[in-house]
């Protein structure tokens, strides 16, 4: 039950993009085509799940154990950077098709604050290992969902008559605001 709640909470109610403002850059940058958004979302979800799986042991068995939790930022970011780079190389080698679809997004994920944010929240909320992995996965799903919605809307907007100064980033942000308004409906849905 708790796992399901974590999943719903992280993917919908406390959607990283719309309520914590994490991962806004790719949300703005890679959301003009549904296909791109989906690929970016999938790649991010993958990395996020892996990140949760890798950073939790690092934190628990190294940093806490040796009583140096203040090193966590550095350790996490190293782990993430290495993971992303490794995943990139691996995909490139093993499946050129997937690489062509996802490859260009992978480097972007290193500097996606949602991934580091995930690790930090995971520690802050004192999830256990399984919970952390679910949390990582759910966050990725939430991110993908937000990306997909935005990309669908932006594709539609290509036909719309948006005033010139608002085109691009500006209208995207305002739509994000509207989505945040709509997501307020979920407020208080799952407490605790």
């Amino acid at each position, binding site marked *: 039950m708790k796992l399901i709640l974590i999943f719903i909470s992280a993917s919908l109610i406390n959607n990283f993009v719309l309520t*914590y403002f994490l991962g*806004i*850059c790719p949300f703005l940058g890679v959301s003009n085509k549904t296909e791109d958004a989906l690929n970016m979302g999938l790649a991010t979800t993958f990395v996020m799940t892996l990140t949760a799986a890798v950073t939790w042991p690092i934190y628990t068995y190294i940093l806490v154990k040796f009583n140096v939790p203040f090193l966590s930022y550095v350790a*996490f970011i*190293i782990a993430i950077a290495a993971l992303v780079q490794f995943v990139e190389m691996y995909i490139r080698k093993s499946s050129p098709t997937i690489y062509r679809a996802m490859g260009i997004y992978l480097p972007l994920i290193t*500097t996606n604050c949602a991934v580091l944010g995930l690790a930090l929240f995971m520690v*802050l909320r004192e999830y256990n290992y399984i919970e952390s992995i679910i949390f990582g996965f759910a966050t990725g799903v939430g991110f993908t969902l937000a990306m997909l919605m935005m990309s669908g809307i932006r594709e539609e907007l290509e036909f719309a008559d948006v005033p*010139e100064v608002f085109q691009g*980033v500006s209208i995207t942000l305002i739509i994000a605001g509207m989505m945040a308004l709509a997501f307020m409906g979920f407020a208080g849905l799952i407490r605790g």
Partner: protein
Amino acid sequence: MANNTLWHEFKKGLWQDIPPFRLVLGTCPTLAVTNSVINGIAMGMATLFVLLCANITVSAIRKIVPGQVRIAAYVVLIALYVTVADMFLAAMFPPISKALGPYVPLIVVNCIILARAEGFAQKNPIMPSVMDALGIGIGFTLSLAVMGLIREIFGFGSILDIKILGDWFEPWIVMILPAGAFFVFGFLVALVNYLSIKQKGKKTETVCH
């Protein structure tokens, strides 16, 4: 001449390349911590500090770092400075540290820093890098302050916690909510676009990454 270019490196961050609006970098903190002026400024200063340190170090060691681990090395350095900034805030300004929450550690992945390190310091000697960091950092701080100002005025009717709008004003709570952050940011980007169009007859916009 040299001074001139240095001045230029500094100046560009204030308008021409002003980070969140023009470069669309560092959007996350811009949205997250700007529900009041003070938070915006604090975040801006922390970022400025990290940016400065990172630019200096990167510029200094740029010749000895091999390409394969460049990003990794820079990220580690950035994380180092961020941790320092975080501890500093926690030790000296606990309320601000609390208000900014996890967004201080997230400076690590603030794209501005890596973008400047990669895009500028990596290619330039120390002095221009310092000026670049100062310019961009101050531009960023100013941007956050402006966002904070607007949101605080509408959201609380106050500036720097001093009530300036009378009791007749019913605060717009939306302004302090996520939605308000997006709206204000969106409109500021549009405003910058508008001014640019007026200035140059052309829109300049690049998206992070």
